[in-house]
């Protein structure tokens, strides 16, 4: 991807550079050359440590695992076969790899639930912030930004302390007499869901707020003037107007949830794995780097599909807005 872009830039520079030297086109050519020189260092850094490695990972997914981790330089489709399928070692029958499929399913389910959960809490919150007077609005917004920039590990740790058996919630439940045994919340799917919703909440609120800030309240007033109920105004006017924010927030929450590693590792306690943990396992105890690489590429592919849907929908709603 990156490589072709760089050649693309060079080519565009050639196209831009003046064939018939007029002052205008020379200046334009100089500007383009300056821009390309200025962006090159950033592109090199990102190519070395972000884009480039992805291609090597894709390549690794077609190799044979080494005995002690790493790979052997023999091409194989085995890793890709094993992403979803499983061959019995005795009678060679091919079956679905139940363990992998259930982890994929759990990841998808928990990510979608996290998105829903953050939306249900985040939508009213973003609306609340957007309707504050200008001066206090920034303070509320700042209160959302702070958790966004604080350590994810620390916030997960905080949730762990709250829901553990001797944690605040169970202590309160027991002292109020609701239960005499602590309720097991830690190391369950629910714990992962709660943790992810907690850590990714700002990612839902911030884009929602960004589109609600530009909400034209005259339209809402018009709706009420035409005897619409509050629910109808919300559903038929506000929601369609802030749709880009809803989509952006959902994508921003869904992507990191699907690839979550720290939160399920701490709150899921090693048995409730998600995709991120399954990938890690292949590079650790599993010693199957090609399978880990193939799983990572699969995860990346799901993320790309989500991003493409996002871009498409954003463009479409942009177009209808323009019309």
């Amino acid at each position, binding site marked *: 991807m990156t490589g072709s872009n760089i050649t693309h830039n060079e080519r565009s520079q050639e196209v831009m550079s003046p064939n018939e030297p007029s002052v205008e086109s020379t200046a334009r050519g100089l500007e383009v050359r300056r821009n390309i020189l200025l962006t090159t260092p*950033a592109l090199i850094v990102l190519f070395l*440590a972000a884009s480039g490695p992805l291609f090597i990972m894709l390549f690794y997914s077609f190799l044979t695992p080494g005995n002690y981790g790493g790979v052997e330089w023999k091409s194989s489709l085995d890793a890709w076969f094993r992403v979803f399928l499983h061959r019995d070692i005795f009678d060679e029958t091919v079956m679905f790899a139940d363990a992998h499929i259930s982890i994929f399913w759990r990841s998808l389910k928990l990510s979608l639930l996290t998105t829903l959960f953050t939306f249900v809490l985040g939508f009213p919150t973003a609306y609340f912030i957007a309707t504050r007077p200008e001066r206090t609005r920034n303070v509320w917004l700042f209160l959302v*930004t702070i958790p966004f920039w*604080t350590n994810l590990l620390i916030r997960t740790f*905080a949730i762990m302390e709250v829901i553990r058996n001797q944690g605040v919630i169970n202590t309160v439940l027991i002292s109020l007499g609701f239960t005499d045994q602590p309720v097991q919340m830690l190391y369950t799917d629910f714990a992962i869901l709660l943790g992810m919703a907690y850590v990714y909440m700002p990612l839902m609120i911030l884009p929602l707020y960004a589109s609600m800030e530009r909400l034209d309240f005259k339209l809402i007033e018009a709706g009420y003037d035409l005897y619409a109920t509050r629910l109808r105004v919300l559903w038929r006017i506000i929601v369609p107007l802030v749709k880009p924010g809803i989509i952006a927030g959902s994508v921003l929450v869904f992507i990191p949830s699907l690839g979550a590693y720290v939160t399920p590792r701490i709150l899921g306690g090693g048995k409730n794995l998600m995709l991120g943990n399954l990938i890690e396992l292949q590079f650790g105890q599993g010693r199957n780097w090609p399978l880990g690489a193939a799983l990572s590429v699969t995860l990346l592919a799901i993320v790309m599909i989500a991003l493409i849907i996002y871009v498409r929908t954003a463009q479409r709603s942009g177009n209808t807005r323009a019309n």
Partner: protein
Amino acid sequence: MCVRHNVPVIHVPTNPLSSHKPFVIRRIPGFATVAVICFAVLYIPLAPLVAYSFNAGTSITLWEGFSLRWYEAAWRNDLVQEAAIRSVVIAVTASVCATTVATMAALGTTRTRPYRGQLAIYAIINQPLMVPEIVTAVALLIVFAIVKTATDYHGLAYLIVAHTAFCVPFAYLPIRARLEGMDLTLETAAADLYATPWKIFHRVTLPLLLPGILAGAMLAFVISLDDVVITEFVKSVGQDTLPTYMLGQLRRVVTPEINAISTVLLGISVVLVTLVFLLSREKVQ
């Protein structure tokens, strides 16, 4: 165009004798309550975490009086000290490198007529924000394993390069935002007065851009300091940073020492983000 846009509340005249609340167009019943719950949920779990870092006892659930012993314990713990120094070295180097290349990239992508490949450049710069961290981490593990066997170098450079890359978009965005708010008038004026391009940059552009650069650098620093996933996969043996050290400790019996370290990291983030907030509120000129 829309003059009334900032009129906050529109009252519909109501019967003064009725006890109904005035009909406020912007208000949706229940939303404020949910918002308050949401803010409470965001902050309340952090309270016990901070509180128990001052616990005199060894438990993170049983309060035995106020003490700073766990801060002292963390301070005297060699592993914590080494990890803290390593974290700061990586975060400073990575944020300086990331901010430098991000500033250049921002200058090369704003205040210019759109050129071919510009969108692709945006996509590449923002890539670390779109690709799940675990995928990048695994890809880097593979690449650096190859480099490690080829060169036999096991130093901090791998972590610094990796951190620099994912810090670039965080440094880039505030710098670009600042640049987009600056027009070219002052630069043109300086050029009219025969200032050299370097002098224009040094005496006009850079001072105006400085708040954006500082904001970007601080965000990059925070992001690098807090990173767990990529560091966990890229680090060689004995290269723990504070977050990976904490991740390792969470598997064992947790003492308030972890709370103390968390509180300090939390404090650093809050202070820096507040500074960024204040810096970005400052308008151009």
